[in-house]
């Protein structure tokens, strides 16, 4: 290992400051290809989450080819008119089709339904039809078009991941799912980690009765297995009539429905807050532990002897020392929060279904039944995206750990250990 390090150090002497930094970055990237892959996956999550659909300052930008909620249709050409038709005609002669009784089709802008099959000579059919509301004349050779929902289409060029049983584009849903995951992950981590850090600092700094009260509260919340706690809280808070929900809907600027392209925005937000609670509990415990040792430092005593208030000491002298820890906690807990959302949505409690969440897409009963019949794509791709993102975060974490402490190569303890949000591998 010593040789590996010595060589680039010699090179660095000769390079200007800027080049040296890039050189070092390239060297690091070369030694941690998996970390680079992880960074790529995580960037992909952010890219897809943000640019899935942007509608800001009058500019509309979207990387999803279709609306994730819309039904996709396909147009078949059933045949062509063999003879021209005028507005009064009740019979059509058609070449190259097999029209059935009751089937309907479009002739230019007119919708036509077959009421009776009159005759069939080779490839040419004559049928009696019911014309549309304002029948018009059509020339010979006009195509008969038939439009139907494109359900369960195989992955193809126009639908890279196929369509699901409701004819929605799976590719668009998967990309859009990144937005749900990212939103829930960020909201959960930001609210949870900031609240948890604040409580942890207060709890550790004051000690005594305040510490006891906060820590017993933490004990109580940590006593629940994370999945069970989340399921219970979301069931109660997410209820149509729950007080919290009504408060969020009426007294905060949060939109109840449809926002940033997400239907059921409030439900999504409530799920994020519940996960934030689990994240916050875990953060409180960890930050408090760090504060206990930080507050023994001489500079804290010095600040106090100069007459600094408790609030000032906490804000100016203790908090800056836990910032690094808090940032690391946030980045470790982000994939945990994303996975938690997918898990509870999969169990049918989290984000409700029309919303394109990865977990909810995996829980769709109909899709899962159809999957066993060979229609694997509506379930496979959302789950694959979820696994890929979590994999990316884990690889970044591993590479980061290797860089900061080469002794512990690949020892990753991320996600393990005691605790609410981070209570082991599934959650």
């Amino acid at each position: 290992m010593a040789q590996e390090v010595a060589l680039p150090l010699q090179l660095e002497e000769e390079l200007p400051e800027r080049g040296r930094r890039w050189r070092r970055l390239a060297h690091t990237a070369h030694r941690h290809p998996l970390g680079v892959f992880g960074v790529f996956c995580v960037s992909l999550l952010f890219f897809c989450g943000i640019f899935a659909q942007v509608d800001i300052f009058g500019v509309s930008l979207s990387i999803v080819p279709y609306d994730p909620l819309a039904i996709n249709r396909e147009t078949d050409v059933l045949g062509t008119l063999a003879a021209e038709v005028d507005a009064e005609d009740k019979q059509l002669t058609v070449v190259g089709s097999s029209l059935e009784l009751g089937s309907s089709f479009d002739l230019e802008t007119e919708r036509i339904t077959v009421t009776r099959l009159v005759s069939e000579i080779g490839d040419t059919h004559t049928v009696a039809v019911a014309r549309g509301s304002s029948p018009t004349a059509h020339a010979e050779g006009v195509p008969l078009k038939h439009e139907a929902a494109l359900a369960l289409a195989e992955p193809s060029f126009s639908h890279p991941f196929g369509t699901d049983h409701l004819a929605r584009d799976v590719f668009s849903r998967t990309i859009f799912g990144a937005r749900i995951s990212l939103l829930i992950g960020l909201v959960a981590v930001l609210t949870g980690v900031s609240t948890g850090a604040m409580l942890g600092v207060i709890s550790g700094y004051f000690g005594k009765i305040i510490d006891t009260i906060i820590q017993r509260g933490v004990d109580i919340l940590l006593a629940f297995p994370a999945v069970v706690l989340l399921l219970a809280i979301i069931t109660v808070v997410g209820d149509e009539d729950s007080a919290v929900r009504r408060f969020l809907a009426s007294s905060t600027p949060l939109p109840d429905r449809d926002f940033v392209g997400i239907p059921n925005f409030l439900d999504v937000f409530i799920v994020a807050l519940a996960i934030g609670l689990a994240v916050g509990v875990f953060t409180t415990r960890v930050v408090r532990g760090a504060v206990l040792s930080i507050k023994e430092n001489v500079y804290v005593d010095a600040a106090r002897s100069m007459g600094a208030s408790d609030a000032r000491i906490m804000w100016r002298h203790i908090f800056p020392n836990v910032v690094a820890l808090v940032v690391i906690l946030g980045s470790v807990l982000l994939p945990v929060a994303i996975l938690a959302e997918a898990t509870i949505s999969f169990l049918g409690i989290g984000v409700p279904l029309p919303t394109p969440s990865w977990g909810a897409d995996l829980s769709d009963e109909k899709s899962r039944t159809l999957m066993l019949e060979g229609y694997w794509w509506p379930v496979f791709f959302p789950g694959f995206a979820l696994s890929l993102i979590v994999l990316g975060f884990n690889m970044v974490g591993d590479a980061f750990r290797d860089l900061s402490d080469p002794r512990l190569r690949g020892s990753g303890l991320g996600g393990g250990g005691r605790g609410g949000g981070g209570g082991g591998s599934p959650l």
Partner: protein
Amino acid sequence: MRNYIIRRLLILVPVMVGVSFLTFSLFNVIPGDACVLRLGFGSTPETLKDCREQHGLNRPLFPISINSDLPLLHVQNSQYGDWLWDIPAHQDLGQSLAEGGAEVSTELERRLPITIQLMIMTIIFALVLGVAPGVLSAVRPNTPIDWLARIASVLWLSIPSFYLAILMITFGLLWFDWTPPQFGSGYKPFMDDPWINLQQFFFPSLVLSVGIAAVIMRLTRSAMLEVLRNDYIRTAWSKGLRERTVVWRHALRNALIPVVTLVGLQVGALIGGTVIIESVYNLNGVGKYTLEAIIRRDLFVVQSLTLMFAFVYVLSNLMVDVAYAFLDPRIHYN
């Protein structure tokens, strides 16, 4: 040591009271009580009243009364107090609100063996899949074995268990025309037919174990790397002991201490995991029961099950700390 255990158990009491209080209040803030949920909002006042009396919902919620002829604090004759009191006193965990109203304790009797077997087999699989590759990759660092083990561990850590389960069921059927043995109806207890029973549990526990195995593998690897640097390992080598003896007898024994505690700490994850896996594989265990009860808003069942889970979890954490002291004589609690 004994004092330590006693003190920890005493701390457990307020924690469990807090847990029970939280669960109880959580499910009583939903508008419409259990009877409204059961009978629907369109039911007549008379049937509601009957139902409330039958389930004791006409009692006050909490055992604290102001402006009443009862003492300020009275354990019985309140919903919360009676629920808590009945658990140790009558082994009564309450009754389901669903049609038929099965006793929670009867249901548990039927379902607990399934969940416990699932958990035990999961831990066994996780140890087998985790420890051996972890040791191998620590003994041969930066070799293909090591890379393979590390890539496997990060993959296992990343794939959610429910997704893995779905993939195994689907592609097993599509590619190999294989379906997992049916559990929903025909669960066979181990004593009746061990072979069928093991077949039924093999895949659910394998899927559930993968994530835990990954964590165990990483921990084993780092603990082994740490231990292998110690002086007594060098001594063992210089005595001319065989590699097998050095690694498995001298190093692994010490490296396993953190692994044991880790397994204990995974109980919470395991409980969450059984909720997921039992619903995917249609195993009628406690996890599936919990999920169904939560979806049905079956208050009495949910509050008792949650309390039980929390109790098991807290107790297992305590056991981990105690086991730690037994395994590592250098640790003292006082």
